[in-house]
């Protein structure tokens, strides 16, 4: 969030890069890091000559972290996650968790906001926090030579946030400003409306950033409340990669996280049961030359036996970029869009397959019909043997690409833990993908995909086309 609100404009140092292809992340604000992590963790492949040693480190106080030691780059990357995200916000307090994610580097201990920011800069550490619907995560990096001071600053942020009124008001206004931009951005409007119409009054139907009304009502005590519930050791997961020994890490774990309470205060949220069907289309008029189309329906949760087949299936349908059917039909054959994608979005209490594209107003109906028919075709016939094999080849062969920077490795290790998959997941994952049969995937396609149940949200002026 900090970056979103404060970073540079003009495409960063004026270097406007125009790509041939966009990856799905670019157009899907809901695809936050958590989800991306989950998806990527499936891409882990095995049986590679690459020997990456993952150690389970348990600190003297019993705090566990997964560590990959790497001394070639003089830095340490740490990622951690608490259970509980925006879905924990109380009614009327929507946006509280997201606001918290913006407040942790706004002053802690004796350091006020500016002093804290200057300390970050002086120590050259990097620190960011994110709130998704179900989790709260942190991303920290320090140069090895500054590790003591760096981790001390992290500890301060995690255990003694100040939540000064002044800083609170500033961050609130920044979020309000971003909401005002998003209210006019067709992609943001489409995503928000889609979730609202799918989940109605369930907490998943609410915007994670809150609304102007809810944000204006949030105070220090609300932040403290969310902070107290979420920042505990109970569901804490930690991954570390870099120039540090297991012993040293154990001491740091106790120092940074040891002071947090044992028990989480998060509440169990209700299972979400969105109803899909009847080929619903929500039309939101906006005076733009290009309409944004958001679509999706129910899918399977991460723990479901069908998840991996569904993941492979989605790659073939819309997850695989130029290797996907949607891209082939919509962009390659017809030039209707720059980008079209779909992805699985497994939540704690629900699961979706979601997708999106943008096309000139006059092509909206054609595009929607194509998406529906591709869902139906895949449901009826499943993938071809060749598509299926190509998908497996990609998903298994691209394994190592997920492990080529310290942060990426840390990110993988963290989400494997969050999903409760175990250290051997990395070694087993390729086999799990390879073990799926064509019959199995056809069966999942038939049960999972349904073009008639897709819910569409369109933002634009299709009638003006």
């Amino acid at each position: 969030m900090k970056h979103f609100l404060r970073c540079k404009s003009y495409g960063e140092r004026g270097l406007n890069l125009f790509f041939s292809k966009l990856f799905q992340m670019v157009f899907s604000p809901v695809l936050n890091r958590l989800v991306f992590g989950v998806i990527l963790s499936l891409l882990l492949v095995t049986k590679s000559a690459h020997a990456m040693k993952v150690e389970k480190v348990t600190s003297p106080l019993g705090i566990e972290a997964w560590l990959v030691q790497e001394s070639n780059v003089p830095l340490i990357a740490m990622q951690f996650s608490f259970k509980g995200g925006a879905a924990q916000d109380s009614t009327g307090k929507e946006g509280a968790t997201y606001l918290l994610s913006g407040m942790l580097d706004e002053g802690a201990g004796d350091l006020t906001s500016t002093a804290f920011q200057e300390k970050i800069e002086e120590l050259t550490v990097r620190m960011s926090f994110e709130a998704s619907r179900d989790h709260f995560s942190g991303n920290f990096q320090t140069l090895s030579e500054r590790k003591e001071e760096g981790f001390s600053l992290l500890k301060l942020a995690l255990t003694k946030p100040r939540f000064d009124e002044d800083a609170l008001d500033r961050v609130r206004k920044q979020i309000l400003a971003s909401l005002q931009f998003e209210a006019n951005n067709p992609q943001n409007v489409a995503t928000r409306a889609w979730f609202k119409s799918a989940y109605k009054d369930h907490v998943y139907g609410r915007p994670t950033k809150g609304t102007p009304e809810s944000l204006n009502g949030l105070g220090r005590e609300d932040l403290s409340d969310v902070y107290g519930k979420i920042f505990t050791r109970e569901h804490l997961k930690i991954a570390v990669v870099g120039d540090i020994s297991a012993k040293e890490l154990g001491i740091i774990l106790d120092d940074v996280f040891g002071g947090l309470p044992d028990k989480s205060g998060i509440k169990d949220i209700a299972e979400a049961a969105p109803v899909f069907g009847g080929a619903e289309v929500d039309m939101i008029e906006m005076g733009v030359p290009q309409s944004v189309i958001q679509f999706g329906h129910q899918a399977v949760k991460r723990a479901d036996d069908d998840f991996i087949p569904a993941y492979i299936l989605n790659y073939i349908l819309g997850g695989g970029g130029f290797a996907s059917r949607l891209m082939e039909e919509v962009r390659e054959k017809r030039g209707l869009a720059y980008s079209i994608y779909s992805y699985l979005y497994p939540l704690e209490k629900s699961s979706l397959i979601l997708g999106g594209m943008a096309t000139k107003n006059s092509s909206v109906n054609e595009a929607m019909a194509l998406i529906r028919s591709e869902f139906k075709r895949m449901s009826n016939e499943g993938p071809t043997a060749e598509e299926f094999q190509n998908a497996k080849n990609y998903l298994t062969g691209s394994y190592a690409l997920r492990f080529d920077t310290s942060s990426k490795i840390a990110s993988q290790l963290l989400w494997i833990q969050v999903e409760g998959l175990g250290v051997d997941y990395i070694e087993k994952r390729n086999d799990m993908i390879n073990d799926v049969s064509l019959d199995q995937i056809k069966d999942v396609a038939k049960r999972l995909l349904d073009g008639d149940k897709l819910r569409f949200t369109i933002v634009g002026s299709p009638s003006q086309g």
Partner: protein
Amino acid sequence: MKLDWKGLGHYFFFGLVVLFMTSVALKAEPKQGPDVTYFKLENGLDVVVIPDRRAPVVTHMVWYRVGAADELPGVSGIAHFLEHLMFKGTEKIAPGEFSKIIARHGGEDNAFTSQDVTAYFQRVAKDKLPMVMEMEADRMANLKLLEKDVLTERDVILEERRSRIENSPSSILSEQLGASLYKNHPYGIPVIGWMHEMAVLNRQNALDHYNKYYAPNNAILVVAGDVSSDEVRTLAEKYYGPIAKGPELEPRKRQLEPPSVAPRRITHKDERAGKLTLQRLYLVPSYKSAPKGDSEALELLMKIAAEGTTSRLYKKLVIEDKLASSTGGGYSASGMEYGNLYLYAMPQSGVSIDKIEAAIDDVLADIVANGVSELELARARNSYIADYIYGNDSQSGLARRYGFALATGWSIQDIESYPTRLKAVTPEDIQQVAGKYLDLKASVTGVLQPILKQTAEVKGTQ
């Protein structure tokens, strides 16, 4: 401000750090980062190898020394359009197959175009390096374009333009600012092109551009990852070596700007603007074109003045005076002939643009009059050095760092001598460049102004 950049961050990151990171290779100190080797093939292809043995993967990139600013008048967007069409096949590779082949070998690929460069890359397991080299070398010389594929892809880039520009009021304003900043130099023309010219680009335009610029002697091969210099040399000679050298190209020479004599101002009123926003650009030299020492000082000046939450601008306008909800800025330095200093601010509700602008000008005037402190300078400099070290963690980032620098006319020596120059910057230098370049006559100021509209509403279910 670009509101879509968060997702693009991981791409822009590479781009944005290219020059200053390349620049901060610490020469006088123990070497940070990889041992980069460089050699040239007989046909003129430059080759850079960046070892990174941590994971069994490689990043393979080919950079062409041509970008949007090299286009002929009237065909704006052709550099970027050709970049798309490079995926449309050769004698050996069927249309649209390129990326699919990469994918089914477990790889990822993409390409991008800027004002000065066009680059193609693949990320693959190390044993796939020969395959991607063969494919990239093939399309360097043997592109085959079918009329129908060209027309379909033209529709794609028109949709791309709508997504990036037409659908976004802030992008519309940014494009207008760029067009106004440059009165004569082609950087004023957007990389993606003007809609009316893009709409009539054709196969021959693309082939003309291809035939002129795509040749080994106008390209740089960068391979980063789990591979040795010798291995790369052998493979490069095998796959790229046989490609004939192209005609010698004239030095890249774009028409230069006349003196700046008057500040310019643009107000874009849009019912989708969201929030009142101010943007400003100053025309300044780039790393490549600046007098000795100026770009290093400008870099640090903008870090101190405008970049991030510890900048003078943020502290004064956002934290102390509460006039703005956010501010920012920096130095775009990567162009061959010009760079720009950019600033933006979003006023708090009820604060006028005039007031914000005056406050910004006060902050800048104070630096011009009184300079910056040693402490501020040290912090800014440390920040860049840390960025450089963090950057070493990413092999594809390293590949871009070196590729971009070489493709825009730097030598390895230029890159490696930069840190000494950065360290030589004094507070006096910063004050001097502030006075020299923060000149309103060389600036354009843009205002994004929301106008009232009916609120968008859900019209119900069809």
